[in-house]
């Protein structure tokens, strides 16, 4: 019940004075109330909980986070201990030799 899940807005309409949307959750489509995110647009993503859109999902932030994660490895390669890296590579070479 407490799980809130991301969904994509397919369609928006006014019903009984309430802003409602049709939202796609990876194939499952449900009616969602937009009263708490009145400026959400068709094609945008939001976190939805018990039939209410509670927060817009920011694609730019998602992309930045993924870039940070990807960079973590690069930074380690750049600033890590070169002796350790060489030793790891040597081990990998040894394993390759055994396989051959």
């Amino acid at each position, binding site marked *: 019940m407490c799980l809130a899940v991301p969904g994509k807005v397919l369609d928006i309409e006014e019903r009984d004075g309430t802003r409602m949307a049709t939202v796609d959750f990876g194939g499952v489509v449900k009616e969602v109330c937009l009263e*708490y995110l009145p400026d959400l647009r068709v094609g945008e993503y939001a976190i939805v909980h018990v039939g209410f859109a509670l*927060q817009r999902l920011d694609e730019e932030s998602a992309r930045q986070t993924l870039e940070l994660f990807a960079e973590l490895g690069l930074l380690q390669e750049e600033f890590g201990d070169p002796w350790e890296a060489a030793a790891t590579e040597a081990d990998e070479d040894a394993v390759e030799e055994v396989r051959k």
Partner: protein
Amino acid sequence: MKYIDEFQDPELARRLLDDIHATVTRPWALMEVCGGQTHSIIRHGIDQLLPKELELIHGPGCPVCVTPLEVIDKALEIASRPEVIFCSFGDMLRVPGTGRDLFQVRSEGGDVRVVYSPLDALRIARQNPDRQVVFFGIGFETTAPPNAMTVHQARKLGIANFSMLVSHVRVPPAIEAIMSSPSCRVQGFLAAGHVCSVMGMGEYPGLAERFRVPIVVTGFEPLDILEGVRRAVRQLERGEHTVDNAYARAVRPEGNPAARAMLEDVFEVTDRAWRGIGVIPGSGWRLSSKYRDHDAEHRFQVDGIRTEEPAACRSGEVLQGLLKPHECEAFGTVCTPRTPLGATMVSSEGACAAYYLYRRLDMPAGKTREATPVV
């Protein structure tokens, strides 16, 4: 969202884990507050991949688990009345009250219906003007705004046969109670991402400062949790204690102002008993006097119910991070998801249910599912 697959990327998870392993130099204990995060951690085996010095303690963030027995008994009594259609989220059906649950009330002839949204209950009220429709309004700050909006709509549309049994709880007072306990071992928090989507981060700097603990707002995908852990242990190793947002794609510092305004209008803060823990001051919401007409407790006069927890159930200690689920003698023997002693086992988001479903531990083979390693 289209990024979900990428937030489960094993290669990126390995990089985050490497960074965490390189950062941790001594023992630390972090609490993840939300039951959804607990399930993600156990399901993906994240706790087993972390450095052995780093312990994840499961917090009280399962609304089904912490709803007090007294409120469950009130729900059972109201749901038993012939004039009532009682609407609830599905995960409340098997939560044991004193002697029975909502599922049994239905089998005894009560009109108990499962709804996906509180607005569904309001629609049922419009369709059945000669019946009393009651919605079971439980949950944390994520669930409270939808419920608040539903009561507001009922009042606006003049739907007089709709009322709500309200037992909402708030996270920050629970953090305060956990940190104030003399036996507390928690040194940092992974704050519940979706609670913060609504409430923002304004309630946390005071707590971080007062208890000198880092609080990192954290999401639910494996990479989100690893990033939350990474940022928390970085702070701990440096002796810092600030509030940090590791879930920026869904959490703005101010939260959702429209939802917060509705909460303030419809609810007022009250002391609330947490199942297995006891009363935490200021930790709940009840309907404000303006909406008294839609308060099911007022309408059905169910005061005076006094109940006691089963003595064998140690879910209170589990909820406070003092006991791991499998350390309880009843775990997996007399207490299973089919025969739960307490709500931490019956709730799909409870810590005991997570351990039962995903961990092998010392339990007989075939009783649990394998965790799916994240890397």
